[in-house]
């Protein structure tokens, strides 16, 4: 028999397979949440396979077919969702926009969670002036509207995609930092972490093997709440022309440029708008549902 190690979590008696537990999870979702989960999966698939399912290149001009309406608006089936002012296929642009927007949001959210957790751990571990410093930064970040900071930084740093993502990566770090700090302090003060620490374990062991797995569920919830907010922020900035720059495209970007054709060709703006709203709504609903299920304060 293989000795069970610390990381081995299976129980020999009633082992539940991953598929089974996933099925159980889905069955416990209300209808609306289930729909939201479906939409999230669809959007992810679109983002991954944007190159294959796009009928045209997103930057391919067709000056003969400018401002063509979508097929259900009386347009031709050459361009399902119509074309924009330069005759580019709206559907292809939409798919690529989804990809860019999700990519930005995904990497930024991960960045912010990592930064936040490290800061939170540092504050909880060292206490004293390190903690005060982290708390001051957290307060500062939380009290300044991020939109304003982002505006100032962006316009003056210029606009590469990498830089933009790095900037978005500062969004919401203070929330992860607060969670990590709070839960770690609680664990250190009376809980399981103190017990392991008192056994003589090294801080590495305590943080990686005990604290991180314990706060993971709360962190995941916070990440699902940050993710749609980053999408909103990104699209807002791109809408103002200060986010993702042409020729690259993003959802907010499409809305921003489509705005000038609000009266003549509203479809350019409506399709990406719909994607933003439904996607952020879906992810938020999922996050909200997850919080109700996983929030340790409710157990």
């Amino acid at each position, binding site marked *: 028999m293989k000795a069970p*190690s610390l990381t081995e979590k299976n129980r020999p008696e009633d082992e539940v397979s991953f598929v089974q537990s996933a099925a159980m999870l889905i069955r416990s979702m209300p209808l609306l949440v289930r729909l939201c989960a479906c939409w999230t999966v669809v959007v992810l698939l679109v983002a991954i396979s944007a190159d294959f399912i796009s009928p045209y290149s997103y930057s391919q001009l067709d000056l003969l077919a400018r401002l063509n309406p979508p097929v259900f608006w009386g347009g031709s089936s050459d361009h399902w969702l119509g074309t924009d002012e330069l005759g580019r296929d709206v559907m292809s642009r939409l798919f690529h926009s989804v990809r860019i927007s999700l990519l930005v949001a995904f990497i930024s959210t991960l960045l912010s969670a990592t930064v936040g957790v490290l800061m939170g751990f540092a504050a909880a571990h060292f206490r004293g002036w390190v903690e005060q410093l982290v708390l001051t930064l957290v307060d500062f970040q939380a009290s300044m509207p991020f939109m304003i900071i982002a505006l100032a930084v962006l316009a003056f740093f210029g606009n590469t995609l990498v830089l933009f993502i790095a900037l978005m990566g500062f969004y919401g770090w203070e929330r992860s930092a607060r969670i990590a700090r709070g839960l770690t302090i609680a664990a250190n003060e*009376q809980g*399981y972490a103190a*017990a392991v620490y008192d*056994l003589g*374990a090294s801080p590495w062991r305590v943080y990686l093997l*005990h604290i991180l797995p314990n706060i993971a569920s709360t962190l995941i919830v916070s990440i699902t709440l940050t993710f749609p907010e980053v999408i909103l922020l990104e699209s807002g900035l791109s809408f103002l022309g200060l986010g993702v720059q042409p020729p690259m495209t993003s959802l907010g970007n499409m809305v921003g440029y489509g705005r000038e054709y609000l009266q003549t060709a509203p479809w350019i703006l409506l399709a990406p708008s719909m994607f933003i709203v439904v996607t952020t709504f879906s992810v938020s609903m999922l996050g909200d549902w997850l919080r109700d299920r996983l929030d340790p304060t409710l*157990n």
Partner: protein
Amino acid sequence: MTTLLQVQTLSKHFQVRVPEGWRQRKATLRAVDGISFDLQAGQTLGLVGESGCGKTTTARLVLGLTAATQGQVLFNGQPVESQRDATWRAQRQNMQMVYQNPLGALDRRLNVISQVLEPLLIHGLGDALSRTEQAQDLMDSMGLPKPLWYRYPHELSGGQRQRVVLSRALILKPSLLVCDEPVSALDVSIQAQVINLLQDVQERLGVASLFISHDLKVVRQVSDQVAVMYLGHIVEQAPPNQLFSEPLHPYSQALVSSVPSLWQGQNQKRQILQGDPPSPLSLQSGCVFQNRCPHAQSICRQVKPSLTRLNPERHVACHLFAENPRLSGAPMEVRS
């Protein structure tokens, strides 16, 4: 019998800020203030007192989890420091803690056998196979049968969780257990199970224990000696039967009489102390118990009584017993 643990004039003071009108004032909180006691190998010393009297701080000091302001702790003749160095780590193998809230003290994301064998892993003892075997044997003997080994803490009952905590503390075969309110969070019918188990284990393994509780009945049940704490001081130390049948210190008398007895019912005479314990921030000179003591005299307001030995087994810190025990006779008549 060898002396396992010696605590010598141990103190722990905290610097705190207290609000005072519009501003805050710095003050010293004397959580533990110059306590001394010895613990023999294999014996149990009960530490009893009300909340805020410094019991838990004492436990942390004894284990070297927090630095003492004054005094020292000797374990097997070797000083226990709070520096987390190699000596400190080595001492962990001989002294372990049992916590009040077992659910809080266990990692809810890890199955319980992994947590029981974790001390072996931390101290690099044995190989994977022998560690598992040791943990299994121990858990078996602690009333945790095989079906429970791979469960998670929240899947166990309160009593079972405390058995897990106890197993984790015992797997390194320590010679001292510090139990901080180990049964307070449990239901009465489960308390008895855990108390019995603890007593069996101590007897079988020869472990000494420092047993901290606010519950006099439990302390009496498990201890060979009982020390009564009040505001950071030990006011009386005695074998449990003597303490409960004939408490000497006025505080011990009140404490003992405040414990309702099952069998005396409404006939029991209670001695009611007036007021609340004063804040440990604003202690006057003299005896800590002076403003609630029915026998306080002028000397009690000036001189702090020290813990004096009356006979080999009894110590008391009270001016009434300083020169001549039975001085003015007052406190003895309360209980008949």
